[in-house]
């Protein structure tokens, strides 16, 4: 029995790392611009399907596809922010609604475009399908690899935000847009770069996750909700909080699936989401949100 519990725990922790990568992009964008990118799930899927095409048509390994997907999505993100979102003034609640609706529409544009390119069949790719033996416990190789890469990416992001000038500018803009502008920072450029990086992180996550679960162009909503739950649970804009929340989600899902069955596991994320909203809307580590 103990073996099973440790097995499940490890699985949950590994999945947590992957979930974290899937959520970080959303967190970054929200932190700086207070915008929830509802097209986030679609960007993950695009990154994944790109990796799929590179693999099945050209035999390129997902490890190489990882930065390529990130680069492509970076460009897409930059264009979206510059062309669309910058045109919406973000004052007051109407501004929030408009950006929300713009990303809502964007989600459908990206999903349908992906459908036109890749069709609607589920796609995945065979990569690192074996298992890593730890005594009596067998862990999926692909999951271990994806998780390790995810943690690396999170670390790199953290270092970027903390020690580079650009990263610090991003954090400054997140904390006070007006203050940052007064210091001479080009807020528009920072926003554009931030959205680009956020999208890039989503694409990179997709290229990893498609080795674990198959992607379909119409199934992006679940991914966005999951990412949002994680960052809401951890406290919007809080990176350490997101890490802990991702781990909690991973562990809860795995244990629920094992002990309660798979149907409750699917509902688990929504239940957690609602519970967070009811009892602690600021998340575990966040400041009190606007009420």
């Amino acid at each position, binding site marked *: 029995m103990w073996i099973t519990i440790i097995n499940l725990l490890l699985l949950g922790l590994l*999945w947590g790392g992957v979930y974290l990568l899937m959520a970080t992009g959303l967190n970054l964008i929200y932190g700086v611009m207070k915008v929830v990118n509802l097209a986030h799930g679609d960007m993950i899927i695009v990154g994944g399907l790109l990796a799929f095409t590179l693999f099945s048509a050209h035999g390129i390994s997902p490890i190489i596809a990882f930065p390529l997907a990130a680069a492509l999505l970076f460009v897409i993100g930059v264009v979206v922010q510059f062309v669309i979102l910058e045109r919406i003034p973000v004052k007051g609640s109407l501004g929030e609604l408009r950006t929300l609706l713009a990303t809502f529409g964007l989600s459908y544009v990206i999903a349908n475009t992906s459908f036109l390119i890749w069709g609607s069949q*589920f*796609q995945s790719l*065979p990569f690192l399908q074996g298992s890593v033996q730890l005594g009596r416990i067998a862990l*999926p190789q692909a999951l271990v690899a994806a998780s390790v890469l995810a943690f690396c990416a999170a670390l790199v992001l953290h270092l970027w935000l903390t020690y580079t000038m650009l990263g610090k500018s991003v954090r400054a803009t997140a904390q006070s847009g007006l203050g940052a502008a007064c210091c001479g920072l080009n807020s528009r450029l920072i926003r554009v770069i931030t959205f680009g990086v956020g999208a890039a992180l989503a694409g990179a996550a997709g290229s990893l996750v498609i080795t674990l679960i198959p992607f379909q162009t119409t*199934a992006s909503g679940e991914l966005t909700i999951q990412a949002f739950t994680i960052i809401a649970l951890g406290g919007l804009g809080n990176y350490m909080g997101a890490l802990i929340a991702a781990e909690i989600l991973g562990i809860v899902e795995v244990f629920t699936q*094992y002990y309660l*069955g798979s*149907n409750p596991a699917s509902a688990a994320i929504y239940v957690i989401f609602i519970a967070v909203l009811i009892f602690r809307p600021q998340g575990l580590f966040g400041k009190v949100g606007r009420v």
Partner: protein
Amino acid sequence: MLSSYNGRFSPRLIAGAMLLAATSLGSVQAAPANIKVGLSITQTGPYSPPAIFELRGYQLAIDEINQSGGLLGRKLDLIKYDDQGNPSTAVQLYQKLLTDDKVDLLVSPYQTDLTAAVAPIVNRAKKVMPSLAANVENYSGKYPYLVQAITQTPQYMTPALDLAASKGYKTVALLIQNTQFPIQLAGGIEDEAKKLGMKIVFKESYDPSTTDFSALVLKAGNLHPDVIVGATYLADAEGIVRAAKSQNVGAKMFAFSIGPVEPEFHKSLGAAANGIFGTTLYFPSLKTKGNAEFVKAFQAKFNVAPDYHAAVAYASMKLFGKAVTQVGSLDQTKIRDAFLKLSEDTVVGHFKLSPTGLQTGYRSYVLQWQDGKQVLVWPTEDAQAAPVLPHGGWK
């Protein structure tokens, strides 16, 4: 009718002659109008790939019928709309087909739930519809105008269980996607298992949105079943195989309903797909009536081999033509009766209906991925190669 004839050109005579001339002129001028065949199909949306194969099957059948002179001396026109996999859209479209386009013949949409949604209006309009919905509810007397042109769901995996039983396997773990088709399919599996004396040691269903099966497969594997069976579609079949391989959960046989039959199964799993069994209702290598020609014609027209969706659609359209020809008119009730009496060999197999329209003739077959190719392995009389059992383990 001329009421009096006295040798002069009375007005009535002239009028009558003109009327006669007009009608005969009319029937000479107007060529016989084409017979309209209507349907809605899932062209976009998550389930479009198999639906498009169905559409192609219909199209090929219609082309062939037209090439050999059409039906009742008239050519067939196919009128199709995209229902996007949405039941209320399908209902709207079938309304359109019935009242606006006024089609002569109706065939069914792809998804089971769409067929269930349009069944009431089709039945109310008293139009016979050969349906490709595999679930049995529609054909139990509620909708007399629906006839089933595809293998019924509960029979899908019986051959796979027969194969397992023939090798002496006793214990089964059953994983079921919590949607209409897999649930009914699982019911059939349980019945067959009982008949064969096999024991279901694990049975769990999962939400269709489940993407990671690690914990579920682990749990099933801990009971060390001989056979792991999935009532699945493609994504979950893949997910289960992935979870089994990456956690080194083994069994003597892995079999899935839908999943291995799709080429993407191998694309996504690579070598892990080898050795996995799947279900199909049809295979290009079958020695059924007209199959070799069908495969050749399909390949020539669409550049891809036909799958079972295309085959059942093709067969149903061809049988439709046969029923209409037998009846000699477009009388829907008579055509429906003709369907019920049919006992025909088609590319899919032997077509025979129960009195309420349930398909009793068609069967299913078992395929296995061997060396990156799909091979028909059971029943032995149709097999291309022997099944490779037990499963070789995950290397």
